[in-house]
Every structure is written in structure tokens, then in C-alpha cells.
């Protein structure tokens, strides 16, 4: 198992090593030490490899991950797992703003809190936050699921499309065109699955409320102009 020390190894070497992994390669498990808030750690992974990062990272960790499993044993800066295609990213600590931005697939688990704009413009990613999330989360969310065990900040789901939001705690305010919706059996089933995959125990899916798009902004109507 290669151990890459970012105190002595340039970032470019780490990322190109991750990109050179071929199918059938032996080294599918990497450990990264001394990240000390570095940006763009383990970005552009394109295969079933595992990266354990021992410490906190800066912007865009695991950006565009496609099939990798990245665990950050610390906190993550802005844009963690941005545009993820598939795979799993786990943040043991907190995540800064834009976590999972524009993600298309895969699972992002944040064990601490996430700051503002969590899941902004999400397009299919599933995000589970054990703690709370900040303002403008799931802004323009298109598809995928955002599950929050704690509270949500202001303007949750503003200008939402078809992303499904589940919040267990309080929601400070809902954004334009975002409303509470009934939880149907298929939602409970999906929640059960996501909670299990995210390692959440002792929390029942019935404890969540579901939020989604009122679909009133889907086609321009002058009577809704105040919402623009």
C-alpha cells in the first residue's frame, strides 16, 4: 500500500499516480498523510481505488471522483466531491461550502456539519450529512437525494428542480419554490437504504420530513415574478 506524504511529495505526483492505476493493478489502496489543508487532493479518480487521507484537506478534495472510495480523516474545504460521478466519499469531520456541488452520482457522507450551499446544483448524487447544513443548500438541485440528520439553514432548496431533500431537524427557511411534501413508502425505502450505506444507526426514516419542488417556476409566469 503506497503511503504518500504531502509534506514531501508534490500534489501532482499524488494525482498522476492515482490516474495511472490500471485495471488489475495491485496497488488499489493509497494512504495520504500530512494533507494540511491542501487543495485538489485525490481529484479525477477514474477507477475502483481507495484513498485514505489522514488529516484535513482544502478545496475540491475528490473532485469528479468516478468510482473511487475516498475517506478524509479530518475536515474538508470548499467543494468536496464536486461533480462526483460514482463512488463514495466520506468526510469524518466537517465540510465547507459547496459540498457535493453538481455531483452526478455516488454517495457523499459528511459525519460532521456541512456549511452553506451543500449539494448546490446536484444532479444525481446522494449526500448524507450526520450534522447540520448551512444556507442555500441544494440550490437549483436537479436530482439525487440530500439527507440531513440535523438542521438546515436559510433558503433550503431554492429554485429546486427534482432533487429530493430529507431533513430530520429544523429548517430555518425554505427557498423559492421549495415546499414540504408527503413521505411515501418509496421515500422511506430510499431513506432506509441511504442511512444504512452512510453508517447511520438508531435513526428511523419516519423521523424525517421531505422537501421538494413546488414546480411553480418550471415555466415562466409573471405572477411568480417575485420569486425570481
Amino acid at each position, binding site marked *: 500500500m503506497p503511503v504518500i506524504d504531502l509534506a514531501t511529495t508534490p*500534489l*501532482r505526483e499524488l*494525482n*498522476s499516480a492515482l*490516474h495511472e492505476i490500471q485495471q488489475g493493478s495491485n496497488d488499489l489502496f493509497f494512504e495520504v498523510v500530512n494533507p494540511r489543508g491542501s*487543495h*485538489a487532493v485525490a*481529484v*479525477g479518480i*477514474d477507477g475502483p481505488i481507495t484513498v485514505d487521507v489522514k488529516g484535513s484537506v*482544502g*478545496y*475540491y478534495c475528490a*473532485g*469528479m471522483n*468516478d468510482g473511487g472510495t475516498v475517506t478524509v480523516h479530518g475536515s474538508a474545504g*470548499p*467543494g468536496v466531491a*464536486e*461533480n462526483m*460521478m460514482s463512488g463514495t466519499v466520506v468526510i469524518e469531520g466537517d465540510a465547507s461550502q*459547496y459540498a457535493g*456541488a*453538481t455531483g*452526478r452520482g455516488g454517495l457523499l457522507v459528511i459525519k460532521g456539519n456541512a456549511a452553506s*450551499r451543500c449539494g*448546490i*446544483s446536484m*444532479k*444525481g448524487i446522494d449526500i448524507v450529512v450526520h450534522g447540520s447544513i448551512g444556507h442555500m443548500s441544494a*440550490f*437549483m438541485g*436537479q*436530482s439525487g437525494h440530500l439527507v440531513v440528520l440535523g438542521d438546515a439553514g436559510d433558503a433550503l432548496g431554492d*429554485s429546486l*428542480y*427534482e432533487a429530493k431533500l430529507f431533513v430530520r431537524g429544523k429548517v430555518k427557511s425554505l427557498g423559492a419554490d421549495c415546499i414540504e411534501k408527503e413521505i411515501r413508502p418509496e421515500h422511506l425505502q430510499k431513506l432506509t437504504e441511504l442511512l444504512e450505506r452512510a453508517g447511520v444507526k438508531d435513526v428511523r426514516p419516519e423521523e424525517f420530513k421531505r422537501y421538494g419542488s413546488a*414546480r411553480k*417556476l*418550471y*415555466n*415562466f409566469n*409573471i405572477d411568480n*415574478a417575485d420569486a425570481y
Partner: protein
Amino acid sequence: MSYHNPYTPPRKSATFDDYTLAEIRRAAATGIYDIRGAGTKRKVPHFDDLLFLGASISRYPLEGYREKCDTSVVLGTRFARKPIHLKIPITIAGMSFGALSGPAKEALGRGATISGTSTTTGDGGMTDEERGHSETLVYQYLPSRYGMNPKDLRRADAIEVVVGQGAKPGGGGMLLGQKISDRVANMRNLPKGIDQRSACRHPDWTGPDDLEIKIMELREITDWEKPIYIKVGGARPYYDTALAVKAGADVVVLDGMQGGTAATQDVFIENVGMPTLACIRPAVQALQDLGMHRKVQLIISGGIRSGADVAKALALGADAVAIGTAALVAIGDNDPKWEDEYRKLGTTAGAYDDWHEGKDPAGITTQDPELMQRLDPVAAGRRLANYLKVMTLEAQTIARACGKNHLHNLEPEDLCALTMEAAAMAQVPLAGTSWYPGKGGF
């Protein structure tokens, strides 16, 4: 003999002209602002107001057709391991699949490839047709991130981070529901038939300090191979160019207000941004102040129509130009042969700008399967290649007449201005004088 009082004919207001009156009535009737495609239609100072000073006795011209006048350009020489080599300094600007039909995107790719230049994706991702038919393809990285994925990022030849567009610097785009077909909806992860509103800011960065980190991420994902362009709308060109360079751009793309767009508010198109002519010198000044002119390349777009425009933009300091509207016309947009159908839409060939409505009789700005059948991508690609060839020959003709063996050797001093406005904006002297207004600031 009867006496008639002298007759004073009715006089219409210059301020409240017929167009203005009609627009007030339309707004009052519908309650919706006017949304349309294309760039500004108002008259703004442009390249037409500049002239070249050909050679005679003090300078010696090159022989046309015999003595070489090079047109090649290399883009992305600053950081990228694989810079872009183009045969001509005229590229095809970003226009989305979604705004344009599949055959139209294919035609652009074919024409550009024949001509040895690049084409560009748009706000809707990369299609296989487009990648397949474009030898050199620039992949736009936009606020919406529609269709963004690492596979396409890696199979692109360059990445263009779009911060703004000339028709709407500071605004996001709009694609109305009529054009969100199954395929477009699928590529954009949107429900079919809804209005798609693009964001004006990127979802995961704001400002040049964050942009620097975003660019680093894109370089790391693509192993520092691809040139990274930054596209801005012409509004504060000196600062925006300087900051793009500081953030780590290989290439700056600067789009003036004549630049087209798929759809946005008419009030935005006509009232925000600066004419292309006014953008070039401040941008070049920023590059020169940073010691980066010709090291970070500058692509100018917005209203480029002819080889003369190309030569003038290059003389003012650009490394290349991009064409959008002109390319659409070359492949068949607004062709008078569809005049009957344009009239049914309440417009006329040459004025049609409702590109967002998806009813384009020419089959270009539409997703209607029947309409898009009308565009033969092979023939249209050939027309684009012909047009690019003519522009290149025209630019070479002018450059040779000024004694240049490469288009890049054209200088501002090879130009004079016909009007005070053009002299001030292009910072070249009024014809016959050594003076231009506004020396010392922008």
C-alpha cells in the same frame, strides 16, 4: 382662390419611436420581458470605423499569392503540456447543443476541421457527433455544469472556464421549455419541457482567488495537459483580463456586446456590456502591464464578420478571434430562402432572433426533428469552411499590403480611425492626424 393654412405634418417622437411604443404595448399586454437570441442590434462603434494604412514608399508590401503571409497561431503556451496549434486565427465560439441542433453542431465541427481550427461546446455538454467531427474541440466549463463529466473533460483539447458572455456579462442564460427535448433534458439532468435557467455564478467558486484553486483542480484532473481558457464578457476588460492571468489562465477569451447568445432578456443584451472595439486595448494593456502579451493569448469575439475585422482585431493586439453569429449565418441561419416561413413567424430573414423558441426554419436553432432534417451537415460544414477560407484570404491580403509576413505582426500603428469614437476606443489616431481622444485612461 381659397387659402389653405400651411400644413405641419404629424411628428413622431425620437424618444418614443415606433419600436419603443410597440415594446411598451407588448410589455403591458404580456407582463413578460422580451427574451431573444443574438447580440446587440443597436449601432455601436465597430471595426468598420478603422482603416489600414497600406504600404507604399515608406513601407514595402508583400506580393499577394507569392510571398508567404503566415496565419498560424498557438494557444495555451503558458502552462499546458499540449498547446493548441491552429492553422488560422479564427475559431468557432461556444454554442450549446440544445440551443443548436445536432446537425448544426456537426456542421460547425466539420467546417472548423477542414479549416484547421477549433470549435467549442456550450452550455449543454459534449456530444459524440461534435467530438467526432471536430479535430480540435474546446470544452466549456460553465456555471450550470450541464453535461459536465471527467470523461469529456479528458477527451477535450482545451477547457474554457466561462465566467461571462458578451451579450450578458453578469447574467445567466435561459433555455425555454420548447427546446428541452428528451435528449437535451437527459444531457442536462432536467425534466423535459421546463424552462432551464442557468446560474450567473459558478456553483463552487466566487472571485479570482477561488478561481485560481479551481483552475488548479482542473489541471490536476487532466494532468496539466490541456490549455485552460477563461472567457469573460466585455465589461471591465482591463481588470478581468489581469485577474484571469493572475488566476492562472493560459488563454483569455473576451466577448464584446455584439456577441450572440441563445436567449436572454433584450434589456440585458442591449444595455449591459461594451462594444468589442472598446474591449481590446484595455485587455491588451493589462497583458502588457503584466508582461504577458503573446504569452497568455487573447481571443476576441463579438461581431467579427470578415477578414478585415480579423486583421483589425489582431492589429489591436488579439492573438485570435472567435465567430459565432457569422458561423451560424454561414451554415444557413436567417437565409432568405426560408422567407415565407420567417414571415409566418412574424419576422423576416435577417431579423430572426427568437432562437430560444425552437422554430428555426433553417433547422439550426431548434430541436424539432423535422426542422433539423433541413440542415445537411456536410454541405453546411463546407459552407463554413469556404467562409473561413475567404476571411483568412482577406486578412492575409490586408496584412501583405501592410508588409507583414505573419498576421500577428499587424500593429495598432497600421490603423487609423474614421470617427472620434473609434479613435478613442481603439486608441488609434483619427485619420490624417496624430491624435486620439481620451489618452491616458479607461
